């Protein structure tokens, strides 16, 4: 689908920021050739996915309160069908990183992200999540969640007002609508750190099995 043909109800194409990114994305998609049938199916699935984005309830600090405001009556993200906040990462599609991520929290966020079911998205909400924000000089703060997990949309603000969050979610809706669904699976390479983790898990598994054997 062309970026220009992208329809978002009552918002014009030109009112959105960063259209260049989407255009580039479309160009890359086209390189692999477009199959009409798959393209059509893509559009159907993407229509569904883009209108049903269930966020994970994940809030660490101040942005979390503004995120609650987005869900409350005034802004009401239910209008977009995004109100089904799931507490389990298994059932959610997007994680709003609302608040500062510190050193101790980083592995937790990574684990939550890892446990989410594909396709999954990340919105960095507020200065802290984007770049460490106010705390970027601190010894304990992660300078941008994109160091830990891939971020799809950045919503600046400290904290962003609820409507700004809606705008960010509309940006994500546009991104989802453009994606080639069947080209989606992006397997992130397992980092050496993760290998250590995997080994540890394997060990635990062995211990568990051994314990079972004794019983």
């Amino acid at each position, binding site marked *: 689908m062309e970026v220009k043909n992208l329809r978002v109800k009552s918002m014009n194409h030109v009112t959105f920021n960063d259209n260049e990114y989407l255009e580039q994305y479309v160009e890359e998609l086209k390189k692999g050739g477009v199959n009409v049938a798959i393209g059509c199916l893509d559009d159907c699935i993407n*229509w569904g*996915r883009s*209108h049903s984005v269930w966020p994970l309830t994940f809030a660490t600090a101040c942005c979390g309160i503004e995120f609650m405001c987005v869900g409350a009556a005034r802004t*009401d993200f*239910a209008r*977009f*069908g995004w109100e089904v906040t799931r*507490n*389990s990462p298994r059932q959610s599609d997007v994680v709003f990183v609302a608040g500062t991520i510190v050193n101790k929290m980083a592995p937790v966020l990574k684990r939550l992200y890892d446990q989410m079911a*594909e396709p999954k998205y990340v919105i960095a909400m507020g200065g802290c999540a984007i770049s460490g924000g106010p705390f970027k000089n601190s010894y304990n703060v992660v300078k941008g969640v994109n160091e830990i997990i891939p971020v799809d949309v950045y919503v600046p603000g400290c904290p962003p007002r609820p409507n700004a969050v809606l705008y960010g979610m509309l940006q994500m809706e546009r991104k989802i609508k453009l994606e080639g669904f069947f080209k989606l699976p992006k397997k992130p390479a397992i980092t050496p750190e993760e290998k250590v983790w995997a080994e540890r898990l394997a060990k635990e598994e062995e211990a568990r099995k051994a314990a079972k054997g004794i019983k």
Partner: protein
Amino acid sequence: MSLELIDGINKIHTLLTDNIEATWVSLIEYVLVGLGFLTLYALIALFLIIFERKICAYFQCRLGPNRVGPWGIFQVIADMVKILTKEIIPLKHNDKLLYYAAPFIVIMGSLLTFGGLQFAEGVYGVDFNVGVFYLLAVSSISIIGVMLAGWSSNNKYSLIGAMRSGAQVISFELSACLSMMAIVILGGSMNLSALMAAQEDAWFIFQSPFTWVALVIYLIAAHAETNRGPFDLPEAESELTAGYHVEYSGITFGFFYVAEYCNLFINAAIGTLVFLGGWQALHIPGCEGFNAVMDAIPSYIWMFGKTLVLIFLSLWVRWTFPRLRIDQLLHLEWKIMLPFSLANILLMAIWVIYFK
């Protein structure tokens, strides 16, 4: 319309029997009936999901889904597409067989109950002489699925959720059962068609004051059996994050989601059939003109209309009250509802013998 529907079905039946062998005919018919059930089941779930989301939004002075299609009616379709294309996560350390069987049992439980309902005059899957009994029995199959889901996930939240749901559902099963018994006493039969016939002149709630008590008890118990708030202890969003289905992703979670809404419908439908006259129109004895007007409304509208009213009541309760704690739940069941329903049976029996 339901009668025309039956006529139509009969015509198809004769058409088929004239042309094809009898065994094939019944096979084709089975497939058609099955597909019909499935479609109705899915449609009702989809409708109820959007219905709840809209109503819940209005209770909370919000608008609810309104951007996908007119008034947001295609919202659930989008959800369905999304949930179908979500990854099903292969878990480690869980009991694979039970884990995948659990959604199946939940769906089967609610579909079986669904099969025992009457949707309009003459539109039903099966008509038993123990119909009420059957509905009571199969509607509690789902709970096995819930417990299996909670246990097989090997997750602490889900395990606690499963335990709670066990305690909850077996408790409220009792009240539901006893409140139905009051109706069986009044109607003198367990056959749904017979009960329908008994309500032709007046619905059961107009036949005896004790039906009201039974109805209230039944509604509370049925609400509790659907695991929806204030009785959502097995899910307990704020305590157990998502309770028994915390590890389910993609469509496997979707099955629980769909079954939850179908159970909502099924419980309301049973309540309608047994207490509110099912597909029978509202009749006032001796008021012929009024009765004729009421009769003009098709029976399926009566059925679904009354069911929707009950569902709306259930939603109203859900979106107003906080969740019960497990001891409050048991207090409510064992110390309030059970004595009341036992007393109600006796009183109903006395009423039937001496005042009717």
